[in-house]
């Protein structure tokens, strides 16, 4: 079954490649606008070998992880407090629902003015983008912890602290992980967009935007591929593994996709 689905995926990608190649070589558009797969592959290999791709990736990862960890460190506690205490919920609830629909990238010009061009503005942007999904999901998770579990723990004499560590936190974890996942996806979007606008000199978003100036479509496509692969790797490997090791193993989530 697994082999078959891999085979199917490969066929599909091969078909897509063939269509692209036909389009690129048909002469409808200039080769500078739609480079052939060979050119994209060559650009990719060249960038890997010269180390520039690695350096761009490291810069981007540094920014995204810094902002993302900060968002988790702020968002999870706020979400837990909102789920546990009515007052906190009443205070932060309206703020979150007003701030969340504002696209993080709308803040870029403001952040550039406040923090200057470069790392600080991009990290602030990632932080803004990633915090709200964490808060909302953690909050929902804490509220949806089975009342019966809390009551039975209390009946067995659990104090506030044990209740929190043994029941509330593990009970809310599937939601927290879902929130972190969602917020990483948003952070990834924000970092690429932020790098394009808050121009620095390194970063995957920056290199795509910069290659536009020189019509280096092959470099753009190669960097796009890198962005897609890293995003997919985080989604599948990091979060997928974490989910399997914790809530999947505890039997709280049934279908954990690999």
């Amino acid at each position, binding site marked *: 079954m697994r082999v078959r689905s891999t085979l199917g995926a490969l066929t599909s990608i091969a078909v897509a490649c063939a269509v692209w190649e036909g389009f690129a070589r048909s002469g409808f558009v200039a080769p500078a606008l739609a480079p052939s797969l060979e050119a994209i592959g060559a650009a990719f290999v060249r960038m890997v070998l010269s180390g520039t791709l690695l350096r761009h990736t490291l810069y981007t990862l540094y920014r995204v992880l810094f902002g993302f960890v900060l968002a988790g460190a702020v968002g999870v506690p706020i979400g837990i407090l909102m789920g546990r205490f009515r007052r906190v919920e009443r205070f932060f609830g*309206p703020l979150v629902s007003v701030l969340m629909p504002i696209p993080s990238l709308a803040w870029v010009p403001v952040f550039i003015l406040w923090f200057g061009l470069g790392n600080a503005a991009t990290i602030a942007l990632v932080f803004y983008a990633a915090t709200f999904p964490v808060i909302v999901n953690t909050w929902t998770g804490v509220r949806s912890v089975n009342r019966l579990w809390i009551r039975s723990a209390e009946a067995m004499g659990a104090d506030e602290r044990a209740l929190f560590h043994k029941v509330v936190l593990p009970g809310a974890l599937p939601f927290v992980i879902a929130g972190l996942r969602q917020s990483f996806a948003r952070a990834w979007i924000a970092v690429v967009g932020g790098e394009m606008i808050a121009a620095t000199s390194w970063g995957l978003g920056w290199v795509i935007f910069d*290659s536009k100036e020189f019509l280096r479509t092959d470099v753009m496509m190669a960097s796009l591929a890198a962005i897609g692969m890293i995003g997919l790797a985080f989604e599948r490997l990091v979060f997928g593994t974490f989910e399997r090791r914790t809530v999947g193993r505890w039997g709280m989530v049934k279908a954990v996709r690999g």
Partner: protein
Amino acid sequence: MRRALVPFAEAAFPFVVVGILWQAFALFGPFPPKLFPQVQTIFAAFIRLTASGILPVHALSTILRLILGFLIGAVAGVAFGIAMGRYRLAENLLLPIISLGNPIPGLAYAPLFVIWFGLGNVPAVLLVGFASAFPIVLNTWTGVKAIKEIWIRAAESLGARDRQLFWKIVLPGALPYILTGLRIGVARAWRVLVAVEMLTSVRLGLGWLIFGAREFLNTDVMLAGIAVIGIVGLALEKLVFQKLEALTVVRWGMMEQ
């Protein structure tokens, strides 16, 4: 009278606190007032720009672009999603490509779209459609797959033809998922649109307004623009989609509010 006031005051309280903090930071913080304007300055800019018609015009052109782009994304997304859910070949062919394309931020394609379609409205609208199509395809596909086999068999044994099967069973059955997909799609479209307006230099639009205001250090205009973006986003979520859900799937008893 008092009863009506209490929840209002409760909802307003956090904003008042944030306003006071903002004001204190503007007055005593490290930033010069040009970079971190006081609350009344932002408010005045908001009123001034609304009265002179600048904000409404920008907001309107952004919303028009959103509607156009989202329509493209929604039609393409639902069509592909249903095809993938119903036909094995379409599923095998498209699913891997779409799951690869989904995690790539839509905005990353912006420079490519600019090279292909030039500056202005065309790449902005197309990119919005492109970015919003992914979650719509995936949700529609899941929805079609999640339709109970027994409904289809029951309809077939009652003599439903292919067309009736589609209109009476498949489409309504998949609708809760499709609506979720459209909701995620419109949120994505909104995010991409604001950013892409900064990059493709459209003539009118909220993203462009904010980005242009930076050149002149008009922080108050930028923050007023952000406020409008937030209001429109909130309105999309609360008014449009919750209504749509209440009128369809909740009413049919397929989903709880």
